[in-house]
């Protein structure tokens, strides 16, 4: 039986700007079980990174969490003081960002930076912390860690630095690791190495991972479950196989069709999603995808409920209404409490 690690309910985040409120996240609910690897996919402005920051309580003004709650191991984290948050961040929930160049202190040796974290969070002695740092670096695939810990960040390549960041995030043995576009700034061969690392983490039952990315290839390779976001909302959520083989939401389908098919030869015309994402200062009241959806109908001006497509598979689209019950109905009957 899997253990529920994190639950987000109706999360809402807005950024107060001169032109009005940018509603970056508009009612997002999902859960993460212990040990699983969940991908959050979306384009820029879909709200995927803001959702991650909200989980870590890292939303800064002009941003504000205006609604919803987050539960971690049954404890409500909403409204927790910054002091208490500092105990959770790093210890239980850790985060890795896109750019490993700016996340490390350039004038401190890698070893010092790592042992500082390990000593603070785990209370180890200096020697024990150094040993632990070496062990972690070796685990993320850095050769000669004994020599490497005496070097500065500039002596590391981009991929190596990202591995150091992941090693640091893992150093406190978090139960949840949030990685925000961890490979986007890297070359493909380096990306492949980092993805191998995430694949190994997938088999580690002690650490759950939320992988935020815009790259469907990355999701397919690493994740067990996928959440597709658009316009600040979850459009579809499903086990990774369902997302790629049985996508339901027109946005997911459009996203999959707009990338070149594997082995699809050259000059096979791509099928783009026409138009541009919605303006979140003034989002359409109904489905956020209405302006670009090939199936848009009158009904879409009203926001659909989540429909229950199958086990762990839900879609926010009226097209599912005919053949599928809503998630709320299913829940009321207590059949599939998983969604």
């Amino acid at each position, binding site marked *: 039986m899997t253990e529920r690690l994190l639950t987000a309910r109706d999360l809402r985040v807005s950024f107060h700007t001169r032109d009005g409120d940018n509603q970056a996240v508009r009612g997002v609910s999902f859960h993460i079980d212990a040990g699983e690897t969940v991908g959050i996919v979306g384009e820029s402005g879909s709200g995927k990174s803001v959702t991650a920051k909200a989980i870590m309580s890292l939303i800064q003004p002009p941003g504000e969490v205006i609604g919803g709650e987050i539960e971690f191991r049954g404890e409500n984290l909403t409204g927790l003081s910054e002091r208490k948050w500092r105990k959770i961040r790093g210890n239980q929930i850790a985060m890795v960002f896109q750019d490993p160049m700016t996340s490390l202190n350039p004038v401190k040796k890698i070893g010092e930076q790592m042992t500082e974290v390990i000593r603070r969070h785990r209370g180890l002695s200096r020697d024990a912390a150094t040993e632990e740092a070496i062990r972690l670096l070796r685990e993320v695939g850095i050769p000669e860690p004994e020599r490497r810990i005496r070097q500065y960040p500039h002596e590391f390549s981009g991929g190596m630095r990202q591995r150091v960041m992941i090693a640091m995030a893992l150093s406190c043995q978090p139960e949840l690791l949030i990685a925000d576009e961890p490979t986007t700034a890297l070359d*493909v061969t380096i990306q492949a190495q980092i993805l*191998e690392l995430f694949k190994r983490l997938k088999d580690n039952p002690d650490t759950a991972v939320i992988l935020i990315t815009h790259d469907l290839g990355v999701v*397919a390779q690493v994740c067990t479950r996928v959440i597709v976001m658009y316009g600040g909302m979850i459009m579809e959520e499903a086990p990774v*196989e369902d997302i*790629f083989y049985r996508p339901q939401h027109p946005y997911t389908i459009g996203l999959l069709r707009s990338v070149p098919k*594997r082995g*699809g030869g*050259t000059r096979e015309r791509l099928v783009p*999603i026409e138009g*541009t994402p919605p303006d979140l200062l003034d989002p359409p009241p109904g489905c956020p995808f209405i302006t670009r959806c090939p199936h848009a109908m009158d009904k879409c001006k009203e926001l659909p409920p989540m429909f229950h497509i199958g086990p762990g598979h839900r879609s926010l689209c009226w097209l599912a209404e005919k053949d599928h019950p809503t998630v709320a109905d299913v829940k009321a009957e207590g059949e599939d409490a998983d969604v």
Partner: protein
Amino acid sequence: MSEGAERKVLVDVRNLKKHFSKSKDLWGRTTEVLKAVDGVSFQIRRGETFGLVGESGSGKSTVGRCLLRLYDYTDGEVRFDGQDLTKLGEKQLKPFRRRIQSIFQDPYSSLNPGMNVLELIGEPMNIHGLYPGDERKEAVATLLERVGLKREHLYRYPHEFSGGQRQRISIARALSVRPDFVVCDEPISALDVSVQAQVVNMLEDLQSEFGLTYLFVAHDLSMVRHISDRIGVMYRGRLVEVADSDELYDNPLHPYTKALLSAIPVPDPHAVSERIAWTGETADSEAHALREASPGHFVALPE
């Protein structure tokens, strides 16, 4: 590619080298040289798309910039439509500057924020003395509609557009002087996935409509395969393999190409990925010249 083989060569790059001085001593003498491009030769035929792939630092963008003569190259030759550009001064280059245009990665920094769309697209026309007077506005508006924007957008400024729309403006600007050859340096990598396909389709349409020839520089290997007729793989300033795109992906010969292709994350959870590691030894120890392994397929490996 049988018909392509008969097409005329438009761009002929021969043993191109571009070295940068990495550090200088007290007297300003170069002590360390960075060989960004170190002996690259390839040909692009009229009407085709030549893809250039490689990782950061491989020199692919530097090749593009050399073809645009944004850099003076250290050694080698670039022939455009039979004319050696190497020997031309800025004044003699001007007609070629019209015929060779560029689109860059970042549509946020490549458009002057203080100019409206009419001025942005009209500027190259002005420089090259095309469409004088009243004709210009009409020509710009037509072009704007051709790239999927509207006549109303003429007096708007770059900040009023999304990334995809800005890239459309960049494309219109490049096409405003009726070029023959366009260097596209990572033209879609800053765009969202759903918008990338729009821009790629448009580039393909414009190519067949205006008979354009493209150099498509990118690191997104699946998109490069999609758009290119032929592809060159760069590694540390050299071409290690050149082939028709399907041939390159189906039958890569160089170990680096194999490693690069095996690293692409395939958007299919069932795909069995077997990553081929690349140690870099082969290319480090000896740099080989390209040789034709099979018709049209060149690789830098010993026989």
